[in-house]
């Protein structure tokens, strides 16, 4: 890079030489260990000195912890240190009682994770029964699902997607790593096949509720 071409902010950066990669690895290690929440690469970058390459440091760190008692795991676009699953037997003391989910909630969660982004109507179509507000509320409250983009279909219904907490909880790097996703997709079971006309539409009674939700949404997010 020649000096003339450098933008002013880059000049500033070059004043600070980036620490050696081994040192950067230590920094990432310290940051990931210090928190129970996954940390994004972006956040690492913001917290580390100028010129650091957290992604590379992460790759090194991850390798370093392979086979150890704790591991460096990817959670969506963030990273965290977690105990190795085979040592769970040592952790009875740390076990936290997760709220028992109803069958409806579990099914709804699975549908959202495999079909995301998915509307309430689509969930109902798959389950063949209307989705009670409580079920969705419970999943939202657990922060396992959140609202996604509205669907570009009439009524612009809201959609649901899974969250980073969901990935973290189930030890998934991304929603693409859901078990059996490929098989389900190739079997055509994740398609949203519109029912032939004259099929009874499930959850039709809920259409009003859905419309209300949509309005509530816009109120929630557009101001």
């Amino acid at each position, binding site marked *: 890079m020649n000096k003339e071409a450098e933008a002013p902010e880059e000049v500033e950066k070059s004043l600070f030489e980036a620490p050696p990669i081994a040192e950067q690895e230590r920094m990432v290690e310290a940051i990931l260990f210090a*928190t129970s929440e996954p940390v994004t690469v972006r956040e690492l970058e913001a917290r580390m000195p100028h010129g650091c390459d957290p992604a590379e440091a992460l790759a090194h760190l991850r390798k370093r912890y392979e086979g150890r008692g704790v591991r460096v795991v990817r959670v969506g676009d963030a990273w*965290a*240190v977690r105990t190795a699953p085979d040592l*769970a037997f040592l952790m009875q003391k740390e076990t936290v009682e997760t709220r028992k989910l109803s069958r409806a909630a579990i099914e709804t969660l699975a549908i959202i994770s495999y079909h995301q982004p998915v509307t309430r109507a689509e969930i109902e179509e798959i389950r063949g029964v209307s989705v009670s507000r409580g079920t969705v509320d419970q999943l939202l409250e657990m922060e396992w699902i959140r609202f996604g983009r509205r669907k570009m279909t009439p009524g612009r219904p809201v959609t649901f997607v899974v969250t980073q907490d969901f990935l973290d909880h*189930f030890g998934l790097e991304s929603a693409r790593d859901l078990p059996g996703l490929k098989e389900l997709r190739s079997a055509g079971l994740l398609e949203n096949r519109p029912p032939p006309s004259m099929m009874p539409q499930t959850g039709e009674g809920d259409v009003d509720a859905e419309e209300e939700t949509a309005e509530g949404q816009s109120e929630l997010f557009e101001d």
Partner: protein
Amino acid sequence: MAEEDVENTTAHLSVAERLASEALIVDVDGFEGPLDLLLTLSRTQKVDLRKISVLDLARQYLSFVDKAKALRIELAADYLVMAAWLAFLKSRLLLPPDPTEEGPSGEELAAHLAFQLERLQAMRDAAARLMARDRLGRDIFVRGLPETVERVRKVHYTATLLDLMQGYARIRTRDEFRPFVMDRDHVFTMEQALERMRGLIGFAGTWTDISSYMPDGWSDDPIRRRSATAATFAASLELAKEGKVEIRQSESFAPVQVRRRDPRE
């Protein structure tokens, strides 16, 4: 005709099947809607969901609904809607296709129902696999003793050169654009004259020409002299009114004289 079929079906049911369907009735609350019920019924066929006989399934469902009715079990509307639809589907599947009739064939409808059942079953299996994964707080654990991350909020202020120049220009042009503005460089105000005289009057025990109270440097320029003279004269009158001075003039255009007024007088 549907009635007949139901009776036939019921008649042909084995004891085990009958027990099973009675169990279903008892458990009606346990079903999550008609699709769930159909899925459960389909298990009695013990075949791949893709090869399921939708016709058989329809028959089983209808007989279930009839039994529920016989037992006076209140069925939710969607169970009844499904029953009506399955009865329709059954007739379509049994009768040869009517070429004049529009819409999807019985086979298409049946295929979609089979797809729905297969998809629901797939989601149930997926849900089970998901819940069986190593889970946070049960199999995998987070840092138990997280260190507090101190949040430091840093406000970064920005301003551009243009902001700076505009700010400056704004200040420097403020006076020029004031609707009423006097060039105060050449104006000696009465307030200024008063202030000046108050300081000096204490020493004026004898009659003194008010021109001697004129400020320095205001006598040469006629414009400035006029302003200063007027202000000094007005200030003298003000002081006289306050009873601080006496004022006199021997004749028109004669010098105006002031003298301190002794409070005891």
